[in-house]
């Protein structure tokens, strides 16, 4: 079925050895990666691609909001902002200026499990970037004025993403409702009072504990020579010592026994809701099954929920379903924006009806095939640029300590059957396992109380 893959990829990947038509999809999608570790524990992944004069440098750390403590939520992300405040060698303005004056852009991101820093640069700038990245792994400035200002910036970010955003509120509500014990329950951006409470000492300690070479993955993709690059990496990172890392201790989330709900009344035109379920973590077979299930249920105008709610009933203006799979536990979620004046409870009932069908009937072969094709297109899209490739490699290496996991994705999706989808729906998407988060317009009637909402937050 996918014979064309081998043919076309052969042309793309210059370093690729000849692929026999009988090799698996995994092998066909493989890109040539040189992986090694420095004695201090820094994991390095190099992938040469000379099709454009560009390089992408990703330095990710295995620390995210799930490593935070109660009362100091948001610290991983707050700290990520401080990583741009400079070092004695590259003071704040000099740091940004050098990157831009060399024709590059940089940014960073924080998630539940990791924090990633990256630069997209013209080729020939690796010496500078590696010097900057290695330097800020150890020698960061902690200037009280900078910290004071950046705290306000982060609080603005929270207002922007959560407090002034219906979607952001729903998103935060989903995680708070699905998780009650697990550290995924608090938001990556953190709570206002915790951001206020975070002290310089807290931030310094966070840096000291987690920003070590043996907690990091360095990925470089694009137009460079591996040999010379390895010497540069040795030069800049070789002398940074490794250090013991704390054990990531946390309480696992118990299985949910009855339906939960949460609600906010706001001055909005459109009612919105989310329905969410605990799901397996990244890498497990069922995660792949639920990815396809989510696709069939709520990805695009040919999906079941879109047809029902947006097209036939015309109750909703948009709906989407996806299965989010971070490292420790997944969340299967459906978000729906109901049209102004329409009945949110009827849209929620329709959603549950469609999930009921998933638990009780097999999806058609066409639907399954469609979902697999859509997933494959997403996969290909993510590999079109050098920065996309670097990101995919970094993500897989950080989560699984094995970047080759990404090459197995397509085979694992392809092997999913309609029976497995039904079984996953039965295992994870029972009504008592659901969490419902609603944003209601002011003055709208109260929702009908569903049985089992006693556990509701």
């Amino acid at each position, binding site marked *: 079925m996918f014979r*064309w893959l081998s043919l076309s990829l052969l042309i793309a990947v210059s370093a690729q050895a000849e692929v026999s038509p009988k090799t698996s999809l995994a092998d066909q999608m493989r890109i040539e990666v040189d992986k090694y570790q420095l004695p201090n524990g820094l994991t390095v992944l190099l992938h040469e691609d000379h099709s454009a004069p560009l390089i992408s440098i990703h330095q990710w750390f295995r620390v995210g909001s799930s490593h935070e403590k109660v009362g100091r939520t948001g610290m991983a992300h707050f700290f990520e902002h401080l990583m741009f405040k400079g070092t004695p060698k590259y003071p704040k303005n000099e740091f940004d200026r050098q990157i831009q004056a060399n024709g590059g852009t940089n940014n960073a991101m924080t998630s539940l499990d990791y924090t990633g820093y990256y630069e997209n640069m013209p080729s020939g700038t690796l010496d500078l970037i590696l010097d900057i990245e290695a330097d800020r792994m150890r020698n960061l400035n902690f200037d009280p004025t900078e910290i004071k200002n950046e705290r306000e910036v982060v609080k603005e970010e929270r207002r922007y*993403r959560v407090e002034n955003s219906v979607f952001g509120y729903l998103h935060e509500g989903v995680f708070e409702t699905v998780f009650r014990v697990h550290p995924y329950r608090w938001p990556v951006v953190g709570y206002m009072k915790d951001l206020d409470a975070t002290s310089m000492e807290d931030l310094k300690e966070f840096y000291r504990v987690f920003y070590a070479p043996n907690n990091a993955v360095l990925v470089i993709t694009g137009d460079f020579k591996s040999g010379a690059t390895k010497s540069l990496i040795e030069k800049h990172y070789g002398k940074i010592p490794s250090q013991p890392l704390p054990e990531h201790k946390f309480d696992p989330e118990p299985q949910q026994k009855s339906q939960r709900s949460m609600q906010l009344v706001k001055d909005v035109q459109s009612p919105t809701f989310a329905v969410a379920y605990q799901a397996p973590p990244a890498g497990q077979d069922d995660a792949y099954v639920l990815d396809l299930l989510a696709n069939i249920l709520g990805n695009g105008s040919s999906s079941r929920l879109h047809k029902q709610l947006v097209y036939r009933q*015309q109750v909703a203006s948009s709906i989407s379903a996806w299965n989010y799979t971070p490292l420790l536990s997944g969340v299967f979620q459906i978000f729906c924006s109901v049209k102004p004046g329409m009945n949110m409870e009827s849209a929620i009932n329709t959603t549950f009806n469609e999930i009921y069908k998933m638990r009780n009937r097999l999806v058609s072969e066409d639907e399954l095939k469609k979902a697999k094709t859509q997933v494959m297109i997403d996969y290909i899209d993510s590999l079109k640029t050098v920065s996309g490739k670097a990101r995919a490699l970094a993500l897989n290496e950080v989560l699984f300590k094995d970047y080759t996991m990404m090459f197995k994705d397509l085979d694992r999706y392809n092997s999913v059957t309609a029976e497995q989808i039904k079984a996953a729906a039965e295992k994870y998407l029972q009504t008592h396992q659901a969490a419902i988060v609603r944003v209601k317009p002011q003055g709208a009637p109260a929702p009908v109380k569903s049985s089992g909402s006693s556990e509701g937050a």
Partner: protein
Amino acid sequence: MIRQTVMVLTFLVLTLGCASMPGGGGSGSFKLRPFREVTLKNGLKVLLVEDKSLPYFSMFMLVAAGSSNDGLTASGTAFLVGDLLDKGTSKRSAMELADAMGQIGGELSVDVGQDFTMISASTLAEHQATLLQNFSEMVTEPAFSANEVDRAKKQVIAQLQKTVDNPGNFAEVVFDSYLYGSHPYARRVLGRKRDVTKLRKKDIIKYYLTHYRPNNAQLAIVGDFAPTIVEDLETVFGKWTSRKPAELTFPEVPSISGLQIQVIDKQDLKQTEIRLGHPGIKRTEPDFLKLRVANTILGGAFHSRLVDEIRDRRGLTYSINSSFDARKDAGPFTVSTFTRHEKVGETVSETLRVMKEFWEKGVTDKEVADAKALLRGMFPRSLETAERLGETMLILRYYQIPDSYLTNYLRDIEKIKTAEVNEAIKKHLQPANLKVLVFSPKDKVLSQLRPIGLVQVKNYSEYVQ
């Protein structure tokens, strides 16, 4: 686990900043990846950009009409036409089309703008024949059935009403109408509720028949396409016929005198959205690149004057950026930001101060050198994929910008001198004559804004009806 990256980017991951710009290279002329141009018998111009690096096939069609072509009291027509393309053809119903597109991996994406409409779709290389068939059928044989028109109108009206639920988006839309008065750029692409309600099937068909013509469109085919692609295109687009395109003349862009402030009151907002600016430049403006350098220094990059002052030094916002949206007629120059209610006065006055100083004193040689290096460095990334090249070239051709804009970009940026940047700033920025839009609970901000300029207050509900 590669799909997570897609989701993670949109939903769960917090990035450091919002500043974003299109994506180094040596000097001299920039070598574009190979492409081929053909004109079909019916006049449709086609750009072929081959890329066999991954097994995909993508189509982009630019139709040279957008919301500016809507009738004066028929705003929203262009949007409905675009929205209805995949809602039924002479051969298939909306749901049949949704399934047919879904089965090969996606759906038709239609992006209706003020100047033009971009229609695109992508699939795996093995499904290219099916995509060609579906795409051409939707573009050349849409049914515009009464049922679907009614359904689409209701959907648009719901969208219009709920825009206010997204404060940033709402501020943007209201700012356009505040800046442009009776010029077409004032109108929302989605239309005004009173116009959309009145639109009839025949208005939609008339727009379609006027503008959706092969000689008023361009097509780019990108990816791993078959050697027979040109014949295949002749087959699927063969029956689509040309017609003399309608001329569009713009009324004069309104000018602004002095500093005007409009507060849109909404009591429950948790943060204030701010937009300020004035009508800017056309895409054909000869100072386009000089202004690109200027804007990079002002607020178009992460390290820029506005970001340094408003975000980093004062901690007033998470994001501030400036941009020239260069269009067929003079598009807006806009500074966008948001802050907590109690800092609205400081944010507006400091932003104005930065702009005034920028205008009065100009930029330094060092700033210009750094901005040029950044623009040059990012340039290859803006054309890194074959899709980006194809789409970019369609847009350039629409604005009648020659390909030498791309091939000479690095050299032309390099040649720009500080004095030229400063002249362009003096000529095109007007920090004393501009409009400020503030979307906020009025009681919390009025006393902060009155010392800055004349304030007019409106309630958001005026924009929701």
